[in-house]
Every structure is written in C-alpha cells, then in structure tokens.
C-alpha cells in the first residue's frame, strides 16, 4: 500500500479498499522501522486521531480529494502544539501557538501529518548535515547525503515513508534533494504559496512546494497549498488554478531551451548524459530543442550568497533567548544572554551566514555588496525574460553530481558551488522542478525544468507527459537498503 501514489491512495479510500487509519498506521510503522533519520518528530497519536476524523469525513461524504492522505511536513512549517525546530538546537524546545498557512490549509483539507522531517539548520545547507538532529541518509545509499535543505522530506518520499512531503526552496532546497533522492519536487513561482508560519531563511527567496512521487501528485498537493494569503504581503493575488487541469495536454511543439552555461565544466559526465537522454525523450514526444544562453547566471552564486545571508542575518535576530527558544544558563547580563544563547543555539553554518550577512549590510559595505547583488539579481531575471521569448521551458541538470558521500565536503564554499544550477530560479522568482531522469552508478539523477512566471501548470504538464513514457520516477530503493 505504501508504494502507491497519492492519486492511487485516494482511489483506494474512495472505494473503501482501506481506511485512512490503516494507511496512516502502515506509514507510521515504516517510519518507526526506518533508520534514515528522515524525521525529527513523529506525531503518532495526533496522526491516528486525524486519520479517524478523516475517515469520519469520508464516511459522511464531506471529504475533499486529499482527505485522509498522510504526509510528512518539513520541520520549518509552524504547527500549533507540535514542536517546530527548523533543525536547530535554538528551537529544540519551540512549540508554536499557531499554524502556518500551509499547515492550516492541510488541516482544513483533512490531510494527516505523520511527523516533521529533518532538514539543514534553518534551511541552510545542501546536504542535511547541518541539522542539529544529525544528517538524514540517502535511501539509495546510506553513506550518501539526501541533499538539502529539505533532505528529510525527499528521503521520506523516496523511501516511501510518506506518499508526499512538504519542502521549502530558497536556493534549491526542494529541487536538489528531490534530484539526489530520485523524487519529483516543485518550487512554485515566488508568491504562489503563503510564507506565513514558515520559519524564514531568506524572505525574498523562500518558497514552499510539494515533494512527491509524480507530477500528478504534485499538482494535487499544489492545489491545496497555493493561493493568496492576506497574512503574507508577498503572496500574489491571483485566481485559484486547478493544476491538474492541463496534465494530459500534448507537449507537441514545445520548445526546450538548453542554457549552455548549465552544461559547462564541473558537470559530471554521467549526469550530463542522463540529462541529454531525457531531453531526447522529450524530442520523441514532439518537443524541439534550442541552445540558449543565460550569460549572467555565472553571478548566481555570489549574488545568492550575499542576498540570502543578508536577509537571514536579520531574520534570525529574533532568536535572542528572550521570549522563546534556547536560553543560556544563568546569564550575567543582557550582553551575556544574547551572546551565549546565540553561540550555543546556532550551528556553524548558520553562524557563518549571519556573519556574512551582517558584514555585507554594515555601513560602508552595503553598496558594494547588498546593492550590487540586487543589481545582478535584476540582470539574472532579465536573462530569463529574454530566454522565455524564445523557448517555453528551460531544462538542465539540478545538481552537477549525484548524491555525494556524507562528510565529503570539508570546505563550505565548495558545497556552495554545488548550488550553481538551482539558485537562478530563486533569484528571479521563477518556478522550477526536479524530476527523476535516470541513474548514474545507482544514484538518481534529476532533470531540472525552469518555467516562466506562473507556469506551474505547464511544468506539471511537461513533467507528467515525461512520466507517462518513463519509469525513473517509480523506481524504489532496494528494501534491504531502506
């Protein structure tokens, strides 16, 4: 039962093949038996209760499509009454008194939360190794990282510990772990999903989205997640879309742009050939391919590593040991309270980014760093605007390599470089997806698709058509590995 997609599970619930309680129990058993460390908190009792309520709703006939479907929630979304740690010691004791808008919408829809998934501390990292709770392991090879920051979510879906999971993507945090774990991940257009109650890393880049087995499932979940929220000033006031509507459209005549910058040195040869094989598949489906250039994408890494740290240095200031979160023992005075609480509560990577951001924003450096980064950000967006006049979708790799070994990156900057293909979409606010495109040495390879603003339906359509003719997305890690 746990290998099924959301679409299949909803059928089973409708036909009374099984109840929500049965599904949920099944997943909970599997989570408890797993040693991937994909979850920070498992909400067993609450999940069973929610499943019972869902079963009642189904029986009474007032259920939504996803009522009774379980999911794993990234531990960055506030959940009333359940700890929200953001993978940090700082919030190890933090229980929010309110629900994030995404959590609220899922509750309303009757979805059942299985638990909260592991992640890089405050979503800062590409390997899940910066989590206070220890790294999640990649279900395809436990010595390898699942990617990050939504590594717990991607690993959980890959290992079929949950039919889907939520993720957040600031510089690739949905797409990269999805790629490394061989699942489908969608980062919507900035402003599509409310950020209210999602612990902020870099506010102008953060965007939540689903991590699923299939594009069809992603469409079903996005239907619940997306929409204007008056509590988030940056959420867009748009009409609600049905993202499943155009899944079955033909993609004949589609023009795919391949940016030459995404296939340059540094890209693993095997990854490159898997990507090109996938592109061939699209040509078979009637798409044409065009080489394009995103000349300013070379500035994506320096731009991102100024913008994101600047914003996070300010966003994380509220973690001061005064009202919630970690407080040091017996502070001598105010200065000591701040200094020790934050020194003890934050991990290395978080401190590094706070330092970078504080430096870049300080007087005398602001113009040279923050302002300059805003300008290059604009240039990067313009590259895409130009490109989308010529092509319908941009494709390339998500990550230069497949999942790397745990502990293999000693130097933070070389890890930053692995984000090279994903950062641009965040800086421009564009939607992006990762879909399973093949394997290299038994590790999954993800194909990245970047679309124009608000082209989620189009991306899901393209991905769905690909998944109709390929099997990469339905590969499951060997049971003995999981």
């Amino acid at each position: 039962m746990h290998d099924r997609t959301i679409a299949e599970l909803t059928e089973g619930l409708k036909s009374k093949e099984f109840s929500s309680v049965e599904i949920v129990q099944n997943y909970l058993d599997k989570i408890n038996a797993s040693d991937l460390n994909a979850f920070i908190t498992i909400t067993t009792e609450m999940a069973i209760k929610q499943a019972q309520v869902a079963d009642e709703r189904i029986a009474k006939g007032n259920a939504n499509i996803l009522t009774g479907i379980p999911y794993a929630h990234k531990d960055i979304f506030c959940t009333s009454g359940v700890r929200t740690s953001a993978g940090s010691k700082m919030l190890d004791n933090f229980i929010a008194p309110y629900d994030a808008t995404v959590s609220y919408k899922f509750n309303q829809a009757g979805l059942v939360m299985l638990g909260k998934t592991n992640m890089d501390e405050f979503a800062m990292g590409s390997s899940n190794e910066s989590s206070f709770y220890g790294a999640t392991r990649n279900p395809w090879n436990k010595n390898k990282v699942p990617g990050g920051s939504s590594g717990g979510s991607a690993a959980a879906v890959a290992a079929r510990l949950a039919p889907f999971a939520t993720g957040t993507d600031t510089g690739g945090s949905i797409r990269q772990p999805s790629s490394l774990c061989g699942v489908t991940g969608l980062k919507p257009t900035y402003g599509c999903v409310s950020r209210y109650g999602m612990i902020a890393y870099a506010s102008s880049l953060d965007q939540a989205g689903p991590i699923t087995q299939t594009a069809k499932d992603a469409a079903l979940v996005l239907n619940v997640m997306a929409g204007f929220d008056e509590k988030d000033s940056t959420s867009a006031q748009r009409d609600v879309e049905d993202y499943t509507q155009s899944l079955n459209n033909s993609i004949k005549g589609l023009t795919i742009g391949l940016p030459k910058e995404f296939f340059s040195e540094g890209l693993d040869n095997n990854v490159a050939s898997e990507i090109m094989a996938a592109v061939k598949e699209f040509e078979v489906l009637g798409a044409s391919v065009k080489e394009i250039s995103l000349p300013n994408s070379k500035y994506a890494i320096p731009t991102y590593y100024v913008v994101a740290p600047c914003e996070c240095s300010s966003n994380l200031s509220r973690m001061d040991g005064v009202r919630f979160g970690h407080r040091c023992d017996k502070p001598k005075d105010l200065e000591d309270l701040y200094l020790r609480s934050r020194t003890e509560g934050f991990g290395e990577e978080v401190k590094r980014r706070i330092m970078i951001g504080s430096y870049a924003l300080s007087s005398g450096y602001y113009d040279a760093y923050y302002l300059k980064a805003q300008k290059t950000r604009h240039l990067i967006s313009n590259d895409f605007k130009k490109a989308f006049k010529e092509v319908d979708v941009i494709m390339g790799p998500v990550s230069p390599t497949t999942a790397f070994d745990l502990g293999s990156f000693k130097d933070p900057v070389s890890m930053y470089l692995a984000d090279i293909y994903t950062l641009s979409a965040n800086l421009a606010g564009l939607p992006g997806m990762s879909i399973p495109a093949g394997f290299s040495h038994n590790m999954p390879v993800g194909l990245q698709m970047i679309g124009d603003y608000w082209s989620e339906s189009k991306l899901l359509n393209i991905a769905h058509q690909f998944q109709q003719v390929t099997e990469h997305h339905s590969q499951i890690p060997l049971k003995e590995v999981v």
Partner: protein
Amino acid sequence: MQWETVIGLEIHAQLNTNSKIFSSASTRFGADPNSQACVVDLGLPGVLPVLNKEAVNKAIKFGLTVNAHINQRNVFDRKNYFYPDLPKGYQISQLDWPIVGKGEINITVDEDVKIIGITRAHLEEDAGKSVHDMFDNYTAVDLNRAGTPLLEIVSEPDMRSSIEAVTYAKKIHSLVRYIDICDGNMQEGSFRCDANVSIRPMGQEELGIRTELKNINSFKFLEKAINLEVQRQQDILEGGGEVLQETRLYDSVKHETRSMRSKEEANDYRYFPDPDLLPVEISDELLLEIKAQLPELPVEKKARFIKDLGLSDYDADVLTSQKALANYFEITLKDNESNTKLCVNWVMGELSALLNRNQIEIENSPVSAQDLSLLIRRIGDDTISGKIAKDIFKTMWDEKGNVDEIIKTKGLKQVTDTAVIENVVDKIIANNAAQVEQFKSGNEKILGFFVGEAMKATQGKANPRIINKIFRLKLIK
C-alpha cells in the same frame, strides 16, 4: 562672543489607529501587560507583517497638511539592533523612501512669522517597554506598545531659540490633533520630542557639532532642556573645549542632561529594505480622496475668522491654536452672531483664565460651549448685565446648572424698568452735589462714578446702558 543656537526637532507622533501598524492587535493604552501582543507583535518565528492601510492614510493626511511632497512609492526598511523590547531584533521603519517628503509650516513668535522646513516624515513601528523596577534582578518586558504606528516628523535645523522650538512643537501638536491622526497625549507618550541642538558663532554658515536630547515629555521640559544644553555647549566652547556628538538624556527631576551614548558607540543599524513588505504604492485617487476629507486647517480657519467674523489677527491666532478651542468658540457663536466680540472676550477671557488656573483642558471644561453660548445670549438680549454674567459663570463652573434657571432662582434678571432706575438716579444726584458740579463743568468721566453708584444700589442688576442714558438726561437738563 555672540552665539547662535540651531535646533531641529524629531517628533514621534503615535497614530491613533485601532490596530497596530503590522498586525491586527489593538493599540489601546493601559491594558494588562502583554495582553495586546499577538504572535506577530511577539516576533515569533514564521510570522509576517501586513501593513495597516489606516496608518498610511493618516501619514498622507499629515503630509498634505504641511504641503509636503507625498512619495507615492515608499519603502519599509529594517533597522537592526538587539534589545529585549524589540521582539524581532529589528524595527520596521523607512530610511531612503519615507512616505512624506519635504514640507513646511509657519510659526509666529513675537508677531514674526517664520517658515520651518519639514525634512521628512516616515512611518515606523513603536517598540515595547522594558520595565526595570518591577522584579528584583530582572527586567520585565511589556509588548503591548510593540507595533503601535508612529509617524516620525523630522524638521530642518531651522529654529534659533528654545521658544521657536516650543512654538514649532506646539504647532505640530495642534496640527496632528486637528487632522485627528494622534491624540497628542504627552504623558502617555503618544507625542514625543527629541531635539538636535548645536550652537555656532553668530554669522558663521557652518553648523556646530550637535547633540541629541531625548526623554522630553512636555513642552516646558523641551524649553528647559534646550536652554540647559545651549548653556552647556556655550560653556564648553568658551572654555576652549569641543562639543561631542552624542545623545543626551534629559532628567527633569535633577534638571540636567547627561550623556547616553556617543557617536562611536552608536549602533550600525544595517538598514535594508524589508523583504516581507512590498513597496507601498499610493494612487492619485487615494491622494485626492484624502485631500477631500481633510478638515479645515488652522491656517484656513484663522483666515476665515479674520475675514468673516472680523477678529483681530491675535484673537484668531489664539482661538485656532487648538482644534478643541476653535470648536468651543464656534459653538458659542451660535445665535450670538451679532455679538462676536463678546464671544471672543468670554472664551479668551473668563473661560481661558479659569481653565488655566485650574489646569483643565478645554475638552473637560465644566462649562459647556452650549451653556456659555446661552449665557452670552442672555447678555445680548439684556436679560442680565455683563457683571452679573460673570457671577453666573462662576456658579455654572462650580455647581453646574442651567443659565436661565440660575437667573431665575437667584433673581438676577436685569432691571430694565426705567421708573425704578430713575428713582435710584434721582437719589444719587441729590446726594452727590459736588460730583454733579464737576460734570456740569465739563468732566465727562465723572459719569462713570454715577453709573457705578447706581449699579451698587441695584446690586448690579440694572442695565448699565439705561442707567447711563438716564443720568445724561437728568444731568444735562
């Protein structure tokens, strides 16, 4: 050496919106600690600010009132610093793109009109309060005030004396209440003043080094603090020293200013645009709409009082200095249109004197404008004399009560019966032969004596105009 004082003011006016600037929590003053702080005000992880449009409208209102340029695209920034009563670790404020740009207002000091430039006015959120004296060894934090909307109004360094500074501050204080954007309560901190003070040798173009004075919560203290600081700077400079650029705290009890932090210790606030808030876009339509809703402003009201009511410049200025006073005055005018001067005299005379003596705001006057209006009407229609009216006014002040009833129960109705008055006049003429002689030899002023005697004899109830007439008739005969 002759020194010139240079002063600029930063005024923080709390906007009287129902809810906070970025959350839906109430802004009511005086509630139990932390009972009016929602998850947004508490700065919990994950929460986001949503701008209160009412605060924007009120800021625009102010801008239009001081003929300022309204920045139709303005931006909120984060001002980063750590303090326990600043929950997010940053204050949302406006740095480079404030909502209100350059404007100006006129002030009058010693009948000289002076233009004071307003550099800018920007929206920001207030911080909470740290309470240091409630628990031993602990500081308590009350976040009820956190997120209350503030309009920070920054002036140009255009003032040259503490009197000018106070006049300007009072003018702004009056304005914000006129247009109903701030309750102006200085005790509760809804209207706060910081003063930037420097001095320079008379005639020198370049500004001296300034200090910023904080913690001033009354106009009186503003004047005192500035005078104190000017003297301090003068002593330093004349002694060959140098003034340090610093923030100084005014202590009204010890009557001194003391250093709070120097320029070197000042925070680097690491301002940057708040990514949680979109730039504010103000449409032409909204500007027009707010313009149309603006009440009559003091300048306009003053001009109308002079033109339509024939008031002197001084009277019109005083009566329009506060909205409540102007309103009060306008109510007394009702049915007393032909006695405008009497209304002016009563409001600026008797009423203001008693209010001042008892330290009562006009809003809380024991005698309502309607009652005073009736009292003036009774003078106008000769029911009572002006003198009796003053006694009635005191009764109204002390015991309340209706004008007509007081007249009736105390038997204060004016005597207008000429036969009665003639009788009294005859007696006075008979008993004061010497004064009669003086009158007849051309001393017109002596008539006052006769009228006075007659008033005394009638306990002030006789109509002085009739008395006067009868005396003239009888004495000239």
